[in-house]
């Protein structure tokens, strides 16, 4: 008999395919787990719609559930209910430790250039706040590139969404 608790624990072991230091539960993209007999229904929200890892995430969640003996149904909820504010405190710490600065809190309205230019963003390597925006875009849709004048290193910043 599969329990919701066992499913949550199994999903907490599923790594993000592009940022393997965090799990899908750390990212807050698993929204709901419902178990009805053998059937396990998971609601999942994409980070960015253009994320090429979406299918991989869905398949890995299904595999994790099937390895518990459940029958997986992963439903993708494509609305605005996920935000980077849903990344757990543990998830944020793991990102920082891997050299990826965690996202700033979401504000009312969509982000503006001025905020990214003027707000304080801390370097994940040395902690300096003397950093500036190098490129809004980075190696994946969810990341920007900043440069730290303190330790003279570029670093990746998780975009606020």
């Amino acid at each position, binding site marked *: 008999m599969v329990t919701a608790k066992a499913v949550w624990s199994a999903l907490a072991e599923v790594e993000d395919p592009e940022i393997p230091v965090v799990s899908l539960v750390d990212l807050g993209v698993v929204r709901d787990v419902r178990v009805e007999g053998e059937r396990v229904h998971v609601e999942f929200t994409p980070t960015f719609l253009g994320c090429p890892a979406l299918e991989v995430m869905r398949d890995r969640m299904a595999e994790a559930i099937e390895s518990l003996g459940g029958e997986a149904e992963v439903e993708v909820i494509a*609305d*605005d*209910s996920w935000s980077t504010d849903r990344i757990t405190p543990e998830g944020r710490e793991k990102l920082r430790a891997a050299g990826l600065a965690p996202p700033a809190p979401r504000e009312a309205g969509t*982000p503006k250039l001025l905020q990214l230019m003027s707000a304080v963003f801390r370097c994940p390597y040395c902690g300096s706040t003397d950093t500036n925006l190098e490129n809004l875009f980075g190696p994946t849709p969810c990341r920007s590139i900043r440069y730290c004048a303190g330790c003279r290193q570029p670093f990746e910043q998780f975009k606020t969404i």
Partner: protein
Amino acid sequence: MSAQEQLLLAIADDELVLGWRDSEWTGIAPVLEEDVAFSSIAQNEIGHARAIYQLLAEDADALAFDRSPEEYRSSQLVELRFVPDWARTIARRVLYEAADELRLESLKSSGDLAVAGLAAKIDREEAYHRMHAELWDDRLGREQRYRAALQELLPYALGMVDGGRRGDLAARFGLTEVDAIERGEHADGWVELWHEMTEVRRSIPGAAW
């Protein structure tokens, strides 16, 4: 198809085709940062197209790739091929994002919650494309080639939004409203792009990748 479905299909087609055109800069943009930016923007736009096609059809790939060229609802603005002209490329990005923001704004208040929710999600992601456009508009704003490109492409961008919002859209760029080029006709070069986009699906019907 309802009026809203037609609008959604037009938006999805615009995003798919613009994603394709933007990706033509991958590897050859003027600076490395723009290689990264254009590749990422293209990937996002195609992701938006996919999410909208999924709202409209069981099989998003079939809707995206199994139509004849005349059946696409895309605007000529996104179909035009600009490589290697950076001024026109940036003018298109700037005009497209401004027009796209206006139409997303109205979809966000749709009574259909799935549509409103998706529009809100897309809008948050597009905010980064708008910032990118703003940076380039600041940088090139006084360049003659860029100003001429904005003027040349404005009629296409006006055709992307409702009649009542066209004056505002033109005014955002300090331009006066002109006759819009409406959606319907396709641009020179569209059929060649369609051949490229649909080549795999035409060679192997039903192919998924």
